[in-house]
């Protein structure tokens, strides 16, 4: 899928840096994202030390050894990458980006490379190369679309992932991600949005009141219920920004009567470790395990969020007990199951507008969740349209790989990263764009705003909430006074 290249003006806007010149000077780093102060001396040596330590304790060497022998330099991947398609800048070709790190590996960690380097007097890794990696690895959204059509099987998402991990070990990582992760792991609130527990419970109570009023059903957000079937971890930002999605999920559980709970010990599904550091990935995943254990839950339930789902599903077994780890499911899998079994009823006459579905890379690329949400949507949305390409070959929203959380690069995301997606959305002519992922939702909203596309970005459960049909037995006869209009109780 090709797109019109960006104009020089768009390029200028997209790459405009908000960083102060004196900070850039001091950090000797020219990137578009803010970076906390770090030790700027001796970067190449420290980079190589970190690289060596990571290689020693990981499986990356296997992949790198294979990739350096395989690369065909055929540039098929250039056609797949939404970033290259938008910029047309040769340095955005996935294979070029990966070669940045592969060449460091070849030069410093293979015998042939070391020998050749010595013979040719090649100085090896330099500050300039680190600068280039620091820039390039955050231009990539780690969406892994390019890997599907690489005959050499090179996984550029993996290399971006590793490159960012090594860079973060020498202090080069987007401040936005680091600060949130610090709060999540070491802060008083223990979550990336810094929501204190009282604020959480207040919010949930407030939503319960709202739902009672709207649906005349007592829809609850169970809190700290031990022994529940599902312990719920949404992207914590949903509590602030995606009330409709949460209400939809609560409504589904009310309709089915299955047990679920949110834990006050830890209630954040977000894992920025997946985007910049395996060490953080591990620590965050362990918090999910600990909370599920504390609550004696049976399964981990992740909300509408792609990276949260992927990091829990694939890394809970990695770091927390292999096949004995808690099973992880995404809320859409649950909803699909109960819908198929006839335990969830949806009114097909509510959502009549055109609806399209956006596949979040983190759950669709490897073919995990693709058809289930579509089946649900098609069953109750009269006017469902498909965007192509889709499914495991989908086009990234443009905010993948954690870039959506870096506010200062919004112009980059909405003019370059999301350009292909914007074209696609425009062509679909949809009214509702269903994006079951906290990151995709934020990016797509900014994208359609900046690109002036009249579309409403929603979650799957937002629409379900609109159309859900409750059993008559669940309807309350009389709404309690204090929850009624909200006036009397205040």
């Amino acid at each position: 899928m090709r797109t019109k290249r960006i104009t020089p003006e768009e390029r200028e806007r997209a790459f405009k840096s908000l960083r102060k010149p004196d900070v850039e000077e001091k950090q000797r780093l020219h990137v578009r994202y803010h970076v906390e102060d770090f030790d700027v001396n001796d970067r190449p040596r420290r980079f190589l030390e970190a690289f060596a330590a990571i290689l020693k304790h990981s499986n990356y060497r296997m992949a790198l050894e294979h990739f350096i022998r395989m690369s065909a330099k055929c540039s098929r991947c250039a056609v797949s990458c939404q970033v290259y398609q938008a910029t047309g800048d040769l340095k955005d070709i996935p294979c070029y980006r990966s070669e940045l790190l592969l060449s460091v590996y070849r030069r410093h960690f293979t015998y042939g490379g070391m020998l050749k380097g010595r013979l040719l007097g090649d100085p090896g890794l330099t500050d300039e190369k680190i600068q280039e990696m620091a820039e390039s690895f955050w231009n990539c959204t780690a969406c892994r679309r390019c890997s599907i059509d690489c005959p050499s099987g090179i996984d550029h998402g993996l290399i971006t992932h590793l490159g960012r991990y090594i860079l973060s070990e020498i202090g080069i990582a987007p401040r936005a991600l680091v600060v949130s992760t610090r709060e999540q792991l070491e802060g008083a609130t223990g979550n990336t949005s810094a929501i204190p527990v009282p604020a959480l419970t207040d919010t949930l109570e407030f939503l319960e009141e709202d739902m009672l009023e709207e649906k005349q059903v007592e829809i609850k957000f169970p809190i700290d219920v031990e022994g529940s079937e599902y312990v719920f971890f949404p992207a914590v930002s949903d509590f602030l920004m995606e009330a409709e999605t949460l209400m939809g999920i609560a409504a589904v559980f009310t309709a089915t009567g299955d047990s679920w709970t949110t834990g006050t010990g830890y209630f954040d599904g977000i894992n920025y470790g997946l985007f910049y550091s395996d060490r953080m990935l591990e620590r965050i995943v362990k918090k999910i395990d600990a909370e599920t254990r504390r609550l004696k839950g049976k399964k981990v339930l992740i909300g509408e969020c792609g990276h949260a789902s992927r990091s829990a599903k694939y890394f809970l077994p990695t770091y927390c007990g292999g096949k004995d780890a808690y099973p992880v499911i995404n809320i859409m899998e649950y909803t699909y199951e109960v819908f198929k079994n006839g335990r969830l009823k949806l009114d097909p006459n509510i959502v009549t507008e055109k609806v399209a579905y956006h596949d979040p890379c983190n759950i669709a690329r490897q073919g995990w969740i693709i058809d289930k949400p579509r089946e649900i949507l098609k069953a109750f949305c009269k006017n469902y349209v498909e965007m192509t390409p889709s499914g495991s070959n989908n086009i990234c929203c443009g905010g993948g790989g954690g870039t959506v959380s870096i506010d200062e690069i919004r112009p980059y995301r909405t003019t370059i990263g999301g350009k292909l997606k914007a074209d696609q959305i425009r062509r679909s002519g949809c009214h509702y764009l269903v994006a079951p992922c906290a990151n995709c939702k934020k990016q797509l909203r900014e994208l359609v705003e900046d690109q002036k596309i009249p579309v409403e970005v929603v979650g799957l459960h937002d629409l379900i909430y609109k159309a859900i049909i409750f059993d008559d037995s669940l309807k309350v006869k009389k709404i309690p006074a204090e929850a009624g209009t909200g006036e009397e109780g205040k």
Partner: protein
Amino acid sequence: MEHLLEFARGPLFRLSFALMVLGLLRILALDLFELYRAYRQAGDKTVPWGKTTLKALEWLVPIRKVFVNRPVYSVFSILFHIGLLLVPIFLYAHVKLWQDDLGLPWLTLSYKWAYGLTLLTIITGLALIVGRIANRTSSFLSRKQDYLWPIALLIPFVTGFICAHLGVGPKAYQALMLIHILAGELIFVLMPFTKIAHCVLMPLSQYVAAVAWKFPPDTDDKVCTTLNKKGEPV
């Protein structure tokens, strides 16, 4: 000249062939070993083997992949590879060389097929070189070896074609034959150390990519210890 030809055809051929086989076996074994070790270390061992195998097959017989990206290049590349594989292995003149020694039965290409396939390989090979130069993205990515390899691979094809199908004098024939054999042997020796190693590694690519995302457990602590970062705040 006769002696030289004999030497190239005899001991030198056997040596280079053995080096190729051993070299390729070595990297294949190393790759497989690394793959096995990574899998053993992985905390999560649920690799979708079936799906991965399908993906690997899809690339070995890349019919479904052709028209997705860069279709013209892909078609030429596939035809080139077919020629590269079939001609040296099934050419009557080649087969005869070892069949006399071993006496094993072996399929051979008919004259017409050999003629056609050799020509096809030469044409597609040249087209790939031209395509690489002309295409903005691939010429940007290309290293020296990406141009040298197709040229090197075409030398035995061109010389062989001239010797077999175009009438040349005996002197020229011998010289061309010598180039033919020596070029082939050089290719044998270099194969394991260059990108041509993909001839044995290619089937493993999809498995490598799948297992690469399976990390070993408890690396946070180990990396921290190695880098002297234990107890450091986030």
